[in-house]
């Protein structure tokens, strides 16, 4: 049953790969959607049966086939479903299915074969993503990890005739490769340390060790794994690929570069929560990187003008927040934010896709405006998504973001908390900047002084041209998906309402077994998990450890509750303040925004150019490599040494044979004489020796 989940989308991929170009769009799109829907149904059934089990033993293990047998390494290709995995497969298949449905309308203007190619990639992506999520050991996860990277490359470069798209695909692939290298090394270190690669074994063995006080093997392993996570989840310093990845079709950006694939890094850390929990140094690095990324991407997002790029930086920023949660040991909060983020970010991307679709490929928000009337469904759903991501109370983003902020504050990471608050303020500002510039105000008349968008902003030359100048709201398949996701964005958070406002934070209890070392006595768990030692997982341990936590006392809890409520009110205020700032600058007083930008021209330029990170990488890494390749490797090593030795061998043979061929005279008697002389010499040698 578990195997069906990744296999169904893979079958869809095979069908569209082999027969796709001969199938009508309805059939190829239908097959892909059906495969995803099937996977979703099976996932839902699996999760349902998982929920029926008692909490302590929730877990389904399936050994598909023996895989790698070498020496002491015995590694089956195995899948495992646990609470963490079950949340992920529901997100991947559920949101994946919705985005497949959306794509059937969005990609309709492609040719039949292109359409089938698109859906085959999308299905392949889903299959690999599910392997990543369900993999029971590092190498199985790595198969999915590499596979989604491949699909990401294929889909970013889907319109490969456009240079910028194929370049973006290559950039994503290469940057991811750097991260993957770290992941591999981390995997090797884990193997040398624990002699096992199965997640549960590693967690059990790590759980028996004390947390590392200083930098040690576990810190090294987790740090290397985190390098992999930064690559896949677009964190500093490997964040540069994600904004460029927006060259792909918008549903792809929604599925791969917002909702699912980029969260793989967060998921991986959650999957190895015990391991990371034993490396406080790594956790500090994770939190630092997360908070830096959240702030940096948030500030860049403020000034970008491409609707999808703003969303891309928003994604990077939100991923940063998830890493903050991971870094402060609040694994459940991070995964919860991952889950809610999947809803509203997919919604926002699909909404932007509907806008782009309506405007025949226009992506520059300076050339938009006043779309509220023409695109009501898109407007209202987009607004819902923006409210949710900004953290407006009682929408899904509020619960998850607040959980992260609270955990970092209560864990004593006040500085991290402060920066995260600034990042969420920025989130509200840039999201509503996007809303106001796109949907409110006046539609700009032609030639209103906005510089020409240029070819890079148009979606593909052959795409969406049938839309013409005529505005139209999302077609039914897209509208339904938008509405469903909007509903999800509003209500998805209610599985994790914190206890302080009368909820029970069910998600945290549900996920808790995935973050604890298996097979430990409740008493021993206290010392084992540093996160718990810091009191951050107090909710998580309630179903298990009765003993240790009652000591904290109800009075202390009471005080915490007040603080938590205060902080909750504060972060709600922050969200509303961000929206207010956006209202002032981008709705009421556009000229004020322009004046501010002019006053801080240097800063504005810095942000507009994304802190010049791409330029720095180009100067520090790309150009030196190019120069070395060109001057040393090409001209000296390749042309000189390698070609030289090959050509030298050739000309040596050539020269020698020019002399030796004189021996072939064609004269029969000369041959006979040489045979005779040879025989005489050989016989003479044997007779007279």
């Amino acid at each position, binding site marked *: 049953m578990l195997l069906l989940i990744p296999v169904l989308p893979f079958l869809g991929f095979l069908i569209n790969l082999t027969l796709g170009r001969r199938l009508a769009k309805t059939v190829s799109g239908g097959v892909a959607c059906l495969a995803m829907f099937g996977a979703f149904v099976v996932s839902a059934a699996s999760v349902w049966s998982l929920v029926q089990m008692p909490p302590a033993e929730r877990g389904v293990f399936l050994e598909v086939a023996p895989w790698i047998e070498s020496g002491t390494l015995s590694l089956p290709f195995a899948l495992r479903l646990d609470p963490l995995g079950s949340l992920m497969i529901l997100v991947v298949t559920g949101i994946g299915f919705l985005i497949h449905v959306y794509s059937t309308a969005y990609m309709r203007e492609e040719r039949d074969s292109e359409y089938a190619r698109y859906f085959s990639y999308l299905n392949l992506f889903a299959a690999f993503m599910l392997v990543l999520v369900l993999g029971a050991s590092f190498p199985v996860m790595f198969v999915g990890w590499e596979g989604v990277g491949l699909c990401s490359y294929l889909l970013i470069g889907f319109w490969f005739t456009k240079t910028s798209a194929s370049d973006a695909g290559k950039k994503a692939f290469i940057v991811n490769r750097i991260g993957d290298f770290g992941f591999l090394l981390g995997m090797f270190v884990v193997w040398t340390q624990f002699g096992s690669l199965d997640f549960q074994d590693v967690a059990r063995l790590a759980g028996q060790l004390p947390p590392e006080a200083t930098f040690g093997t576990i810190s090294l392993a987790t740090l290397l794994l985190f390098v992999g996570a930064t690559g896949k989840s677009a964190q500093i310093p490997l964040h540069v690929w994600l904004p460029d990845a927006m060259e792909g079709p918008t549903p792809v950006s929604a599925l791969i570069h917002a909702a699912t694939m980029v969260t793989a890094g967060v998921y991986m850390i959650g999957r190895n929560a015990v391991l990371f929990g034993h490396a406080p140094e790594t956790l500090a690095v994770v939190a630092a990187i997360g908070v830096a990324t959240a702030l940096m991407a948030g500030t860049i997002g403020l000034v970008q003008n491409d609707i999808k790029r703003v969303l891309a930086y928003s994604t990077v920023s939100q991923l940063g927040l998830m890493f903050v949660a991971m870094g402060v040991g609040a694994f459940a909060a991070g995964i919860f934010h991952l889950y809610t983020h999947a809803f509203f970010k997919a919604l926002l991307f699909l909404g932007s896709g509907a806008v782009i679709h309506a405007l025949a490929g226009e992506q520059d928000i300076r050339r938009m405006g006043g779309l509220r009337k023409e695109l009501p469904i898109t407007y209202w759903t987009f607004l819902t998504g923006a409210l949710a991501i900004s953290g407006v109370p009682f929408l899904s983003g509020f619960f998850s973001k607040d959980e992260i902020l609270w955990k970092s504050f209560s864990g004593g990471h006040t500085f991290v908390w402060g920066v995260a608050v600034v990042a969420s303020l920025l989130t509200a500002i840039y999201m509503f900047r996007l809303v106001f510039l796109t949907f409110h105000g006046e539609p700009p008349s032609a030639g209103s002084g906005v510089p020409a968008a240029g070819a890079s902003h148009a979606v593909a030359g052959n795409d969406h041209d049938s839309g013409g100048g005529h505005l139209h709201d999302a077609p039914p398949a897209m509208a339904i998906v938008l509405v469903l996701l909007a509903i999800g964005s509003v209500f998805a958070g209610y599985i994790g309402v914190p206890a302080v406002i009368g909820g029970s934070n069910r998600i945290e209890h549900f996920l808790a077994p995935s973050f604890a070392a298996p097979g430990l006595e409740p008493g021993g768990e206290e010392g084992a998990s540093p996160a718990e030692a810091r009191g951050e997982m107090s909710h998580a341990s309630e179903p298990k450890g009765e003993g240790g936590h009652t000591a904290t006392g109800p009075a202390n809890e009471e005080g915490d509750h007040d603080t938590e409520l205060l902080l909750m009110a504060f972060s709600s205020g922050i969200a509303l303040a961000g929206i207010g700032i956006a209202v002032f600058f981008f709705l009421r007083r556009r000229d004020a925004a322009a004046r501010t930008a002019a006053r801080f021209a240097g800063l504005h330029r810095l942000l507009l150019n994304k802190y010049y990170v791409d330029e720095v990488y180009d100067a520090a890494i790309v150009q030196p490599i190019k120069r070395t390749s060109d001057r040393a490797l090409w001209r000296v090593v390749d042309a000189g040494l390698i070609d030289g030795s090959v050509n030298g061998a050739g000309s040596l043979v050539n020269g020698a044979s020019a002399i030796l061929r004189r021996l*072939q005279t064609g004269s*029969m*008697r000369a041959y*006979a004489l040489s045979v*005779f002389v040879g025989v005489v010499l050989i016989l003479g040698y044997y007779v007279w020796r």
Partner: protein
Amino acid sequence: MVPLGHYLILSAILFGTGTIGVFLRRNVITVLLSIEVMLNAVNLAFIAFGRTMGSVDGQVIMFFVVTVAAAEAAVGLALVIALFRHRESLNPDMFTSLKW
């Protein structure tokens, strides 16, 4: 009975004659004939050895050599006829086009 050495000396003289013929004569047919002389010199040596040792092996080998020589003569003469038709010559030094 004639001693073995005499046979061998005669065989060597015949073989030498044949060899010199192969190298010195300017007619392909004569060259072929010289080769026959060399073969028969070898046959003579085989039979002499076989008789001295009281064995028929020498004669058996001789028959094989004669058979092969007959075949070689047939093929060789056919080639000579073909060459002559082609080049109007029987001088082996004229047939040196198979070279570098």
